[in-house]
């Protein structure tokens, strides 16, 4: 209220009065207020009772900018570094055709048409058999949930945005101007409101541009050119060079479901994530449009460029043995999305939380992978296993055709490696936080932590039917 009075005085030129009332405008977030009262714990308890998804509620843009949600919040043990822990040889690293990956032509190219047909046939037969048998995790109700969520998992989002909101020109005002720091805080605040869990920013240069695909998920050529406006045609998309910032963000998956992968019911958390990313993107593109800037999005999840690459460079997470990024807060249980904008933003740095060193020792995913897909070698390599991977990153590489073959035969998107990873564990346990803190500082206890994970019996749950007895929080977000 005081802010409105302040604004009214400011409009009338009464600067002193505006200042007087303006200073009463509280920039204290609800959480800070509770902390100040020493009731942080009680506040957390109350927050858990909040409706829907506990999205922060803002009254105005000042609150967005001053909100603790808008800052880059990372646990204290996350170290920012200049280069990602996975080595990248930018001379060797080139833009890549998405058509080469398993989901497009890669599987057939690697295994042949006959094999692909056979794997799909096996998948269909297994599906029918398990449905008839009522196999736990693969019953009709599990399948119904899987198919129901999958049916809207890849909604058609727009590269250019739907362009429904007004522009500053149509409103007769000048566009929003802020420093990159202010803009970044604003972007984070808005994106948190729209459902993003963590947000990072990568500035494009001649190297990071290589993270964009040459051809997109739908086969359209991606051009990055010195043009005034972005464009999209039947067989191309053009990103103007002035769009220098990639916003890369995560959507949470349900931990309770991740640990039940690869059952049909648990697959819902993957599909829900894929639906929530475009939900956010559609709205965010409109926000940026009304601010007077361009925001280009993915035409469908995983489009435009490599999510792991952008995420690792922006410090959302670190490269792991399964070639996915492991985030500090939620391990592997996230889905990653990206957008490109010309709104000047402050880039975020890569991080080191000891993940690669832990992966070097642990190898749990490689030992337990049902399709024997994950490399069990201690050291990383520059050598890629096939044309479906691009060289230039020193990492561990999965044998993707074998992985996808398992998917096809079981009619799932597997994800068992997500479930067993010792770094994807409940945040509620203080032991887990102490462990992450320790592995980010020293490698000395990595082996012990792996053994402890086995002892605790943490990891995948095979009693898939227990899923139906759970009382879930909204979206299963725990």
């Amino acid at each position, binding site marked *: 209220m005081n802010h409105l009075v302040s604004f009214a005085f400011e409009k009338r030129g009464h600067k002193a009065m505006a200042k007087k009332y303006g200073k009463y405008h509280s920039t204290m977030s609800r959480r800070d207020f509770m902390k100040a009262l*020493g*009731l*942080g*714990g*009680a506040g*957390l*308890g109350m927050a858990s009772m909040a409706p829907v998804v506990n999205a922060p509620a803002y009254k105005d843009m000042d609150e967005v900018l001053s909100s603790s949600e808008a800052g880059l919040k990372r646990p204290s043990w996350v170290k920012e570094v200049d280069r990602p822990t996975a080595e990248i040889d930018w001379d060797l690293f080139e833009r890549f055709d998405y058509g080469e990956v398993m989901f497009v032509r890669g599987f057939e190219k690697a295994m042949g048409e006959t094999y692909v047909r056979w794997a799909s046939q096996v998948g269909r037969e297994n599906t029918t058999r398990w449905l008839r048998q009522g196999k736990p995790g693969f019953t009709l109700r599990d399948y119904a949930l899987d198919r129901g969520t999958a049916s809207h998992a890849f909604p058609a989002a727009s590269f250019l945005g739907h362009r429904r909101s007004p522009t500053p020109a149509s409103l007769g005002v000048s566009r929003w101007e802020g420093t990159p720091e202010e803009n970044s805080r604003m972007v984070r605040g808005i994106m948190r409101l729209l459902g993003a869990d963590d947000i990072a920013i990568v500035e494009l240069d001649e190297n990071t541009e290589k993270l964009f695909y040459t051809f997109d998920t739908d086969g359209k050529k991606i051009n990055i050119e010195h043009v005034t406006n972005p464009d999209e045609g039947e067989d191309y998309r053009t990103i103007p060079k002035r769009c220098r910032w990639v916003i890369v963000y995560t959507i949470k998956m349900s931990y*309770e479901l991740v640990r039940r992968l690869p059952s049909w019911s648990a697959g819902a958390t993957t599909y829900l994530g894929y639906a929530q990313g475009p939900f956010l993107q559609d709205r965010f593109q409109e926000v940026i449009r009304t601010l007077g800037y361009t925001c280009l999005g993915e035409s469908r999840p995983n489009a435009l460029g490599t999510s792991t690459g952008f995420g690792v460079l922006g410090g959302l997470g670190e490269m792991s043995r399964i070639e996915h990024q492991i985030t500090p807060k939620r391990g592997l249980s996230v889905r990653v999305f990206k957008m490109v904008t010309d709104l000047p933003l402050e880039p975020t740095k890569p991080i080191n939380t000891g993940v690669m060193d832990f992966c070097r020792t642990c190898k749990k995913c490689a030992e337990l992978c049902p399709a024997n897909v994950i490399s069990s070698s201690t050291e990383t390599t520059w050598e890629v296993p096939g044309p479906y991977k691009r060289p230039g990153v020193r990492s561990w590489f999965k044998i993707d055709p074998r992985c996808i073959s398992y998917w096809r035969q079981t009619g799932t998107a597997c994800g068992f490696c997500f479930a067993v990873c010792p770094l994807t564990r*409940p945040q*509620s*346990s*203080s*032991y887990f936080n102490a462990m992450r803190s320790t592995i980010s500082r020293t490698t000395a206890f990595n082996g012990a932590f792996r053994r402890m994970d086995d*002892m*605790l*019996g*943490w990891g995948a749950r095979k009693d898939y039917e*227990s899923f139906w007895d*759970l009382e879930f929080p909204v979206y299963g977000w*725990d």
Partner: protein
Amino acid sequence: MFLIGMLVGMAVLGLVLFINHRNIDVRWYEWLIGVLGFGFLLFTIQNVMAAAEGYWETAPLVFLWLFGTPSLVLLIIAVLLPWLRHRGKNRKGTVAENAQG
């Protein structure tokens, strides 16, 4: 968290009042052992509860065994040492009083 903080605060206050009232001599290292034991106990309770909430079967038992046992041992030592000394002092006092009487 708030409730736990309140309970811990009340327990510590009660303990200090009890020690002062009974005039029990507690050495610095006994305090240290006690604090460590209590820390372990809180850590155990938190993790057992978190694991139980997550429907884990093995994890609560492992946490109980791995962190709960040392916490109990440390707490017993922290209580036993001052108590034995206090009892010894009282006995000596009683013997001296009897000798004088």
